């Protein structure tokens, strides 16, 4: 597990494999009434192609 800023190298992110974005905002408009933080569960993932579908399902569950 690692935590990084947006300047963290994408290469490193690919090596770690799972990418969660923690600081997303609901709207890009500054001072908007609905502007608040949002976090979506479920990571963006890098994985090897030869991984079986079962494995993908397992990692999804985690």
């Amino acid at each position, binding site marked *: 597990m690692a935590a990084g800023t947006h300047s963290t190298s*994408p290469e490193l992110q690919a090596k770690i494999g799972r990418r969660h974005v923690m600081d997303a905002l609901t709207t890009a408009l500054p001072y908007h009434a609905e502007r608040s933080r949002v976090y979506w569960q479920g990571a*963006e993932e*890098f994985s*090897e192609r030869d991984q079986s579908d079962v494995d993908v399902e397992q990692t999804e569950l985690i």
Partner: protein
Amino acid sequence: MNTYMNSSDSKLLGTAETLNVLLEHRKILSECIREMDANAVNYITEYAIFQRVKNYTENVRSDTRKRLNIAFSSANLLQSHLVMELDNSQGENRLYFQQSVLAVVRLCDVSLFKKLTDAQLKTHLQILNQAHQEMSCGEYHFADEDDDFTEFIDNLFLNIGRLMSDIRQNIVKMQSISKELEALTAHSVNSQVDTADYIKAKQTWLNEIVKLYERHILPVLLFLNPDTCYQDLDGLHTVMSNIHKTLDAHNQASLANHIQSYALSFLNFYQPIEATANAVNRFIHKERDSIKRFNAIEHFYQHKLLTEFKLTQSDNLNKKLIGNAAILLPNFSPSIKAFTRPIGYSFNDSPAYYKNLFNELEARTLDIFELHDLASVFAKANINRDAKNRMRRHDALVKLLDSIHLRETNDLLNMLHLRLEDQFDAYQLYDLISCIGFYRARDPAFKLTTTNLFAQAEHGGQQFRYRKIRCVNNTHDVNKI
């Protein structure tokens, strides 16, 4: 004569009934006995009883109050033989209670047990010694028919029994010592007190505890110790064993066994008292230590630090910081508390450090000349071009992205993926992450919205499962608004 008898009727109670009332409401008599002990007299004044009864009956039912008033009236106490004598020759009415009545009340209240002082112990010991002398000088015939002998033996056992009960009460008292210590310290712990009061209070406890230890615990311990010898008297255990031997020699086996068992019981008392004594001793030492420490710190603060601080409050504007004179003077702190501090790395500018460093360098240079091999002294040089290569690759990517034109799409990454796969030789899937950052910062004409829908891209044996990003041209959106 009886100030409070006038209000109630003159009916009196019997001995058993009066004693019953006395014991049922023994708080009254307990307080009287405590006062009597404090004044070191053997009588209780009528007025003291009257006042206690009055306070006690303030919040009780009226019939109970009436009963108490009758029971505690002097006439009733005298009539029921609980009081031996009423003496009004000294101006106040003094009630001399029966010793047995006082003993019963003392039995009910642990705090009323008389402490066995050194003098009392000596008296007990003298009685036993005297008894042994009488036995061995041939005054008695050691026969059950001899009335003198039976009386003497009864008296002997009475004395031993009394001594036994005294010591037992003392043990109970000592076992409740922790409660007493707590009561002593409670005040200064609970309330907010300033330092002077705290020191005073602490000194008071210490004095009381030391007194308790030296005047009450130690003598009893000494008295029960089988190895103790007194100047002109035999110790308790020596006397007991002597009496045992004399009785045994005169064919009084059962009496001898009785004495033996008493001696064993006395020996048994020794251990619990010793444990208490050890605990109290430790407490005293600890308290003394802490008072010493506290005094040292307080002295430093009051006499050194405060005087230094007052110097800074003068009109002289040059003197606004506390000087270090106070800190250098006293020599108390090293012995108070020693704890190890972390040792830092010795990178510093002291002459010793530089000397050490240069010695090491000199030695290594000499090594080089002797070994003719520089490589063994200095490590091998190495160039790592990875970082530079990454930088070049990123520059190439940025150049390419600059030339790519975006269009409105539901899946920006898929579009970029397809284009980069064709146009960028060193393309890796993770470049897509760089692309988003690039466009977010660079291209305000398109609005990028991350959605919670997943899509997948594949390249070179790797998969990237990503959230779709919607790309909308926001120039006409702005116009609309």
